[in-house]
């Protein structure tokens, strides 16, 4: 099947640094508490202040001028030129994912559904105000997850990507040589190479600001505290309380994403409260750091290398002269 070596996500491999304290695992002595973002999409109003404030502070160039027709999303994704990205999802129905058992009016095909895209027809499905009364407009400010086990950092061959004393993951622009490995290693599709620059760029969690005790630009600007910045432990507690409140108030679909230190990346330094399945927002449902399998990869490569050597030996010794 898909994952031949499929296994339930368990604790991190012994080689990995202890969960929750990546800074100590990266050689930082007496590191300050791990800092992060909690992005509560249930209060996001989609204003994009985070996108702009980030650009203003970090001098990020524009992404380009192009109407994408993806609701009010015209930057498209997290890119080298958008370190915060607000996703907009227009939903005529309350939830994105349907299990097979649920009755649904939609065809049960494995279809990639193009919301609002110029596909087979306009996206209207019901036709009356009443029928669309359960309409939702989800907004979510996405950002680099600053994984506890960060694939980008693991694979970076130059040390341009490094773990800071705050437990965040930062690209050093003076070091990066644009090899592009991190781009493919990120399970969230965050880090990206800037076309006319050649280096990769992403959220630094405002490394310069937080070093001076300031709040990152996006969190400082956010009008509704959808983006909260602080010590990760504190944020996790706050987030759990918020989910409980939402469940109490009749929003059972509220769930956290990236908060679990036991998930495939050891938990995110920037985690989220979502109101639908992650993939609805363009997030992977079960990301895993690729280097988790690295020991086994080297093992298989070793076997293949031996096979190769053996092949050569046999070729020379095995035949007549």
């Amino acid at each position, binding site marked *: 099947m898909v994952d031949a070596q499929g296994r339930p996500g368990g604790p991190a491999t012994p080689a990995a640094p202890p969960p929750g304290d990546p800074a100590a695992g990266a*050689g930082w002595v007496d590191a300050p508490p791990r800092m992060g973002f909690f992005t509560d999409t249930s209060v996001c109003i989609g204003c994009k202040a985070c*996108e*702009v404030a980030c650009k*203003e502070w970090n001098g990020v160039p524009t992404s380009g001028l192009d109407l994408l027709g993806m609701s009010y999303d015209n930057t498209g994704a997290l890119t080298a030129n958008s370190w915060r990205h607000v996703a907009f999802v227009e939903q005529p129905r309350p939830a994105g994912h349907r299990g097979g058992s649920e009755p649904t009016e939609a065809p049960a095909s494995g279809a990639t559904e193009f919301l609002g895209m110029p596909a087979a027809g306009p996206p209207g499905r019901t036709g009356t105000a009443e029928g669309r009364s359960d309409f939702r407009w989800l907004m979510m400010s996405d950002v680099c997850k600053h994984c506890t086990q960060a694939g980008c950092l693991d694979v970076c061959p130059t*040390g341009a990507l490094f773990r800071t004393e705050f437990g965040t993951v930062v690209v*050093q622009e003076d070091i990066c040589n644009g090899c592009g490995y991190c781009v493919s290693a990120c399970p969230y599709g965050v880090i990206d190479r800037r076309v006319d620059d050649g280096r990769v760029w992403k959220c630094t969690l405002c490394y310069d600001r937080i*070093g001076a005790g300031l709040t990152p630009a996006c969190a*400082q*600007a956010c009008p509704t505290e959808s983006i909260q910045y602080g010590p990760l432990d504190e944020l996790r507690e706050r987030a759990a309380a918020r989910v409980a409140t939402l469940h109490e108030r009749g929003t059972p679909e509220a769930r956290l994403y990236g908060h679990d230190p036991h998930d495939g990346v050891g938990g995110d330094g920037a985690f989220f409260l979502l109101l639908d399945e992650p993939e609805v927002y363009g997030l992977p449902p079960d990301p895993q750091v690729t280097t988790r399998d690295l020991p086994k990869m080297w093992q298989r490569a070793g076997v293949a290398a031996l096979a190769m050597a053996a092949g050569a030996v046999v070729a020379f010794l095995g035949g007549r002269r």
Partner: protein
Amino acid sequence: MGLRDVLLGWPVYRQLTGADPLGRGAAAQSARSAALTPRTEAADRVARSVCPYCAVGCGQRVFVSGNQVTQIEGDPDSPISRGRLCPKGSASKSLVTSPLRQTTVRYRRPYGTEWEDLDLDTALDMIADRILAARAETWEDVDAEGRPLNRTLGISSLGGATLDNEENYLIKKLFTAMGALQIENQARI
């Protein structure tokens, strides 16, 4: 920089000798990264201002180095905005430092097809002359029944909602004294 410094600065050496053998954190940090500080800390001065866009009146802090605005961000002290800004307010630095801003007087002569340059002082003088001429040509002393009018309907103005109270005060005062009453702004729109 001697060979010794090169070696000491080589992250591989730090990997082998420090607490970060895998080269993922402290050992990989560059000198530039270690020395990073926010540019707001280096500002010569901070002006306390107010966002120029909508009428919520969010507080802004304008950081200046030399005569250059280096950052504009929300003022956490403001009980109105609590340090927050919307995308427009957050773009204020780009607004005031935009390369598209016009910084010289431009003049289009009657029937002209292109812009021309004009000295600011000359422009002011030309405008004053045109006001006086328009006033002279269109002045109304009294109405048909001899009641005072004291006005010109030859001059109009539109704008003020993005300006300061002090500016609106002088605008209204001067226009009123010159008898121009067709003064309007966005509040009518």
